[in-house]
Every structure is written in structure tokens, then in C-alpha cells.
């Protein structure tokens, strides 16, 4: 037995001539959150659909919760929960009926189904709206109900496909807290998102997809260290000192970025100790510094660098 809850090796999928996924591998250990990052069309949703057996894969292999998605689809489906990109709840039913429906489909008795539904409605702060038709719900409420629906069967692995797209900041924060609670209880989560902040906050490890291929994988810190660029931001006391400061920095081997006439400039650096060299160069040029800061790379930098590289 392995403690990998998702283990995909060399998975490929094409739609006609379009290669949606091209040799993607992904491993998610039990009880962790993996963030799947990528722009629209990178193949995130396709990968989720293959792993949840919604679509058959063309090549490669994958197991989810220890079961092969191709030969053991039913076992996989018994152990997963899927929250799609769009809240896939029945808008013509009440919130309560939506959850009862799923519980009944999973084999619960009437009584068990009603109990589980009430429990989840309480947990997701929807108890007051239990008997209202879902088409009267707000976007945030629909998403919460959708997530609740995917948890009815106590799944081992939960797939969240862009769960917070289109949500306001408060709703987003609420959803994040729910996901964190899930993981504390031992659930494994695969999360696709376009929001780097979301991946940074929730994901133990991150896989970046671009054009159907994995272009980077690791923890947020690793990705930032490997791919991101530290920068030193400087604001000079006077704009007039800029030409000389720039010349001195270039002599020291830096490539500062500066808009003419401005007091501020940005200097990409490789290591933290480059800070001293920057200060020395500025001192040589007799440039008085009003403000100096070392910026750690953000996931945004990583993402932009990677997707830019992939497109080039």
C-alpha cells in the first residue's frame, strides 16, 4: 500500500488534433493539498476530469486512492468528491434536497441522508437557506453548497476545480478555511486555481501546467527560490544622481532597470548577499539613498516567468 492518494504517470489526452495533456505526471501524498496552476487552456480541468473518471485517458496511467482510474473507475468514484468549475448543483431543488439526493445516490437511507445533509448545511453555514431553492442563492452560497455536495460521501480525495473563481473576497476566505479544516481531518485535496495567492495559502506543493505539460513542480518556497528573482528596490534622494548610480551598478555587474527622470530603480539580484555589493556600488557613486528594500520573489513572478518561458 502506498500513501500516494493520486499517482499519475505520463498521462496524455487529446481532443481531436489538440493535445490537452502531453505526458503529465503528478503525485499527491495523503493528507496534503496540491495546487495545480496554469492559465486557461493549460489542461488543469482535463487532468481533473481524467483523475475523476469523467473522461477516459488516452495514454499513461493513474491511480486515485489506490485504484486505477481506467480499470477500477467505480472504486475511484466511491472515494472521491468533485467540485467543478461551475457550481454543479441543481438550481431547481432546495439546498437540502440537493444534498439528500447525493446521499441517497450513494446508498444512504432516508434517515441517514437527511442527517448528513443537515450536518453539512450547518457546517457550511447554509442551514437557514436549507429549504430555499438554489436559484435564489448567492454565488458564494452556491459554491459552498457545491463543495458540501462533494463531501457527502466522506471522500478520501477531493478535487476542487477553481473553487473560488468569481467569488468575493469574504466568500473566498470562508472557502479557504473550509478547505484547511478538511485537510486537518486527513482529506487529500487537488486544487486547480488561477489565483497564486490561493495556491500559496493552501497548497503544500504546486504543479505548474502550461500547454498540457508540467513546467515546474515543488513547494511554493522551492519554486520561488528556483525560478523567482529577488530584486532590490532603491529610491534615490535625488533624480539627478541616477545616471552616475546606474553606471556604478553596471560596473559592479548588475543590470538595473530604471525609467529616465525617476528616482526609483529595480535591480534583479541572485543572492541575498548581493545587497552589500549594491550598497558599495551606490556608495562609490556618492548617490544618497532614500529607501532601499530587498524583495523576495512572489508566486506571481514564478508563474509569469514560467508561462512566459513556455510560450516563447
Amino acid at each position, binding site marked *: 500500500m502506498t500513501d500516494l492518494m493520486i499517482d499519475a504517470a505520463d498521462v496524455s489526452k487529446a481532443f481531436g488534433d489538440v493535445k490537452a495533456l502531453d505526458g503529465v505526471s503528478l503525485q499527491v501524498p495523503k493528507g496534503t493539498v496540491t495546487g495545480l496552476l496554469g492559465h486557461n487552456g493549460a489542461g488543469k480541468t482535463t487532468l481533473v*476530469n481524467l483523475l*475523476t*473518471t*469523467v*473522461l*477516459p485517458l488516452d495514454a499513461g496511467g493513474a491511480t486515485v486512492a489506490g485504484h486505477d*482510474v*481506467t*480499470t*477500477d*473507475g*467505480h*472504486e475511484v*468514484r*466511491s472515494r*472521491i*468528491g*468533485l467540485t*467543478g*468549475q*461551475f*457550481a*454543479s*448543483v*441543481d*438550481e*431547481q*431543488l*432546495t439546498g437540502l*434536497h440537493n444534498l439528500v*439526493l*447525493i446521499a*441517497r*445516490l*450513494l*446508498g444512504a437511507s432516508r434517515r441517514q441522508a437527511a442527517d448528513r445533509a443537515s450536518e453539512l448545511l450547518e457546517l457550511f453555514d447554509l442551514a437557514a437557506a436549507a429549504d430555499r*431553492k438554489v436559484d435564489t442563492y448567492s454565488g458564494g452560497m452556491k459554491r459552498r453548497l457545491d463543495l458540501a*455536495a*462533494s463531501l457527502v*460521501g466522506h471522500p478520501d480525495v477531493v478535487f476542487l476545480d477553481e473553487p473560488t473563481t468569481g467569488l468575493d473576497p469574504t466568500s473566498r476566505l470562508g472557502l479557504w478555511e473550509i478547505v484547511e479544516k478538511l485537510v486537518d481531518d486527513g482529506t487529500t485535496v487537488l486544487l486547480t486555481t488561477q489565483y497564486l495567492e490561493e495556491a500559496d495559502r493552501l497548497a503544500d506543493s504546486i504543479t505548474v501546467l502550461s500547454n498540457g505539460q508540467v513546467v515546474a513542480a515543488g513547494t511554493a518556497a522551492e519554486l520561488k527560490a528556483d525560478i523567482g528573482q529577488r530584486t532590490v528596490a532603491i529610491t534615490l534622494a535625488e533624480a539627478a544622481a541616477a545616471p552616475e548610480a546606474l553606471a556604478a551598478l553596471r560596473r559592479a555587474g548588475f543590470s538595473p532597470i530604471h525609467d529616465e527622470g525617476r528616482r526609483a530603480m529595480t535591480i534583479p539580484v541572485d543572492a541575498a548577499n548581493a545587497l552589500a555589493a549594491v550598497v558599495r556600488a551606490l556608495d562609490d557613486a556618492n548617490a544618497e539613498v532614500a529607501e532601499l528594500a530587498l524583495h523576495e520573489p512572489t508566486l506571481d513572478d514564478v508563474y509569469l516567468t514560467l508561462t512566459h518561458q513556455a510560450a516563447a
Partner: protein
Amino acid sequence: MTAVTATPSDPAVTPRVGPIEGLRQSLTLAWRTLVQIRHNPWELGDFSFQPIMFVLLFTYVFGGAISGSTGEYLTFALPGIIVMNMVFVTMYVGLGLNTDLTKGVFDRLRSLPLARWAPLAGRITADLVKQAWSVALLLGVGALLGFRLGASVVGLIGMVVLLLVFALAFSWVSVLVGVLAKDPEQVQLFGFTALFPVTFVSNVFVPTQTMPGWLQAFVEINPVTLLSDAARGLLVGGPVAGPAIGSLLWAAGITAVFAPLSVWGLKRRV
């Protein structure tokens, strides 16, 4: 664990759900469709008040002109109106399926450990309940207006069974439309633009002999005509075997063509 492991070629048909369990799931999904009606009373209006309106309008506005008396016309038209209503009600299968597909509910169902046929079977089961309700309603309204069953109870049961068998077959047309349509509005558009003429160019409302010859040719082979004749025979009296066999042949033909097309379309869509 089973000792012998089958190696299915397509994960979509991995047979892991027993037929009893699948049936239970279908009934649960049928329950869902019927509960929706409670929240959407207008839908009830669609397959309850609309057919009643047809009965009233045709009987009292055109009845006298067509048959000489409204009572006689009711006897002629009611079986046909029941058939016509059946064809329209069948469109709810495709309408509901399309809504599920466009709203993502179908994907959710596919990610659950269900029998693969359960979502479709649930829809069709719910539709048959609606069909039975409509037939009962129309016969009830007919009885109030003076429609008298000329044949036996066996005839009545026979008509209901024949109607449901044909509805089952015609559901495949509805499923295909539901799968191919981009949104629920397109499904409704199909109902109006394709089904309206097909049901009207029949002998539901007027006898075939009053129409021009070229139209008669179509009317006579129209399954709506055949079914209406069979329904008249079974409810009021008259020849049954010919039109009933014709209807069943149509049902078989429709299933043979549209069932594989629907399954193909559904696989392509999801």
C-alpha cells in the same frame, strides 16, 4: 474482491453497479425530477393546463364545425389529443438532460459511483410518471365534458401501455435533441418548430379525408395518426390491430435509429 477480473476496454461501462442498485439510483433520480415540479409549478401547467386548454378550445370552438356536434367531436379528438400531449411531454427528457449538461450537474453525476445508465433511466422514469398523470388528467377532464369509454377497461389499459411504449421509444429523439442542443432554449425551439407540425399534420383534430391528397399520404403514415387511431379503437371502439402494429413498428424503428445516435452524442458531449 472477485477472483476473475474482467478487463473492460472502456472505463465508462465498468459494470460494478448491480441492476438492483442501479434501479434504486434511477428511482432516486426520478424522485429528483418530480420534486422539481413542486418548486416549478409552471411546469405542471405545461403538461396539465395546456392539454386541457387544447381539449376545451378544439371541442367548443371547432368541434361543431368539424363533427356537427361538440359531443361527437370530443369522442373523435380526445384520444388524439392524449397522443399529441404525450409527444410534447416527452420533450422534458431532453430539456432536463440538456439543463444538467449545461449546468454541470451531469459531470457531478458522472463522478459518483452510479450505474452509467441511471441518470438517463431516472429521467425517462420520471417522464413516464408525467405521461401517466397527463393521460389520467385528460381522461378525467374528458369524462367531465361527456366523453364516454366505449370499450372495456382492458382497452383502456392497452391504450396506456401502448402510449407509454411509444413514449419510451420517442424519448430517444428527445435525448438526442437534449444532447445536441447548446442550451435548454434550443430544446424548446425544437419542440415548437419540429413537433408542432408533425403532431398537427395528423388526424388528431380532423379526419384525414378532408385534407388534400398529397397531405393525406403523409398523414396516413404519421405515427401520431397511427397512435391516435389505435387509441380511438381502444377507448371508443373500432379497428385496433392495424394502427397498433404500425405504432409499434414506428417505436421499434425510432429506437433502432435514435438510441445509438443518442449514446454516441452523449459520449461525444461529456
